[in-house]
C-alpha cells in the first residue's frame, strides 16, 4: 500500500488542469523577467562603459554582487524582507519578475558586453568625428552592430530563465512547481506532480532550444561564417 511508484492516473487528472493554468503563470513570469533582464542587462552593460568612471565602477560592483549571491536569497529579500524594511509589499508575481529579471540582467550584461567589445573601436571614433552624441552613438552605431550576433545566446538565456522559474515557488508564486508542491504536500504523493512538471519543462524547452539553434545557423550563414 506504500508503493509510491504506482502511477495514479485519477490523481494526475485531478491536478493536471490546475497545472495547465499555472503554466500560463510560468510562461508569463518567464517572459516578463526576460524583458526586465534584456533591458536591465543592456543598461548595466552601457553603464559599465560610462564616461564617468564612478558610475562604471558602481555598475560593475552591482553585477558582481548580484552574481555572487543566490537567486533564491534575492527572491526572499524582495518578497519577505522588503515589505518590512521598506514597507514595499509586492505580489509574488511582481517580486518574482524583479528577482529573476535583475538576477539575469547581470548575466545578460556580460553577454552584451562581449558583443559591444567586439565592435571595432574605430566605430566609436568615426561616430565621434561625425559629432554623434553618446546616446546616438549607442543607438545608431554600436548596438545595431553588437546585438544581432548575440541573439542565439540571448535565446538560450530565455530557456535557462524559463527553467529557473520553479525557484519562485519558494516565494509562493503559483507557477507549475507551486501547484505540484501544493498537491504533493496535501496528498503525500509527489511522483505524479513532479514528473509532470519535469515533462512540461522538457516539452517546452527542447523545441525552443532547437529553434535557437536554427536561428544561430541562419545567422551564421547570413554573416558568411
Amino acid at each position, binding site marked *: 500500500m506504500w508503493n509510491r511508484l504506482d502511477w495514479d492516473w485519477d490523481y494526475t487528472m485531478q491536478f493536471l488542469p490546475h497545472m495547465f493554468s499555472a503554466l500560463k503563470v510560468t510562461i508569463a513570469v518567464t517572459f516578463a523577467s526576460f524583458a526586465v533582464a534584456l533591458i536591465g542587462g543592456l543598461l548595466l552593460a552601457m553603464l559599465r562603459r560610462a564616461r564617468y568612471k564612478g558610475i562604471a565602477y558602481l555598475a560593475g560592483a552591482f553585477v558582481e554582487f548580484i552574481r555572487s549571491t543566490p537567486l533564491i536569497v534575492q527572491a526572499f529579500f524582495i518578497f519577505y524582507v522588503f515589505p518590512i524594511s521598506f514597507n514595499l509589499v509586492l505580489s509574488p508575481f511582481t517580486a518574482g519578475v524583479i528577482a529573476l529579471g535583475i538576477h539575469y540582467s547581470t548575466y545578460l550584461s556580460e553577454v552584451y558586453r562581449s558583443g559591444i567589445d567586439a565592435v571595432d573601436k574605430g566605430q566609436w571614433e568615426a561616430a565621434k*568625428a561625425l*559629432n554623434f552624441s553618446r546616446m546616438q552613438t549607442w543607438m545608431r552605431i554600436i548596438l545595431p*552592430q553588437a546585438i544581432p550576433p548575440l541573439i542565439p545566446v540571448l535565446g538560450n538565456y530565455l530557456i535557462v530563465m524559463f527553467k529557473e522559474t520553479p525557484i519562485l515557488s519558494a516565494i509562493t508564486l503559483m507557477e507549475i512547481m507551486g501547484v505540484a508542491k501544493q498537491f504533493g504536500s496535501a496528498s503525500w504523493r509527489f511522483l505524479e506532480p513532479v514528473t509532470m512538471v519535469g515533462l512540461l519543462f522538457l516539452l517546452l524547452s527542447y523545441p525552443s532550444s532547437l529553434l535557437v539553434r536554427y536561428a544561430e545557423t541562419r545567422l551564421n550563414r547570413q554573416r558568411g561564417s
Partner: protein
Amino acid sequence: MNMRSDEKPIVRYRNIRKSYGDLEVIKGIDLDIFPAEKIAVIGPSGSGKTTLGRMLMTLEEPSSGTIEVDGELLWHKKVNGKLVRADEKHLHKIRGKIGMVFQHFNLFPHMTILRNVTEAPVRVKGMSRKEAEKIGMEMLDKVGLIDKKDNYPSQLSGGQKQRVAIARALVMDPKVMVFDEVTSALDPELVGEVLNVIKEIAREGKMAMMLITHEMDFAREVADRVIFTADGRIVEEGPPEQIFEHPKSERLQNFLSRFMAKV
C-alpha cells in the same frame, strides 16, 4: 614665416604636450593652420603626427597646452579667467567644425553607402532626410561612387571605402579636416584613386586640410606648407619646395634620404 599673419588661424595649437604614462609623445608643439590652408604633416612613425590630428578631432586629450578652433578653445573653457576642462556640450559645439578621415575608413557596416553619408547630417544637424540625401548624392558623385549608394561597405574595395569615408566627412561641411594616413591601409594600386579625390577637394579650396601622410609626392603637390615632426616636436616647416629641395635640419635630410631610398 608665412604670408598670412594678417589672417586669423582656424586652428591654433599652443604648447601642446601629450604623454601616455611615462612616455611623452608630443613635447610642446605650436602650430597655426589658416583657413583654407593645406598642411601636410610628415615624419617618422612614432613622431606624434597622428596624435596631433587625433587631439584636434577630440579623440585624445592633450596632457597640457591649448588648442583653439576658429577663435574658441577646444578642450578648455575660461571660467573667471581660469582655464577649466570643457564639458561635453562645449566639445560637441566645437567638434562640429572639425572632420576626420581615418586610416581604416571606419564606415558603418550595417548601413548602406548612402545611409553612411546621410546619417550624421540627419541625426546631428537635424537635416531632413530628403535634404541630406541630396547633399549626400552630390558628395558621392564628387568621389565617383554614386552608383554604389545602395551597396554595403563590405561590397566595396578599400579605395572605394575610403572615398565614401571622405564623402561622409565632407557632408558635415567642416572648416578643417584631418586626413590621418588615409592611404596607409590600401593596396598600392588603390592609393591613386583616393589621392586624386583629395587633390580635387583641395583644389576647391575652402576647407583647411591637415594631411598626415607618408606620400611625399602627394604632400608636395597638394600642401601649401609642410610640417616635419620627429620625436614629438616640429623640427622643420615651410613650403614644399623648401622642405623637399632644401631641407635644413639633419633630421629632415636623413628622413628624406631614407624615404627616397625606400621608394
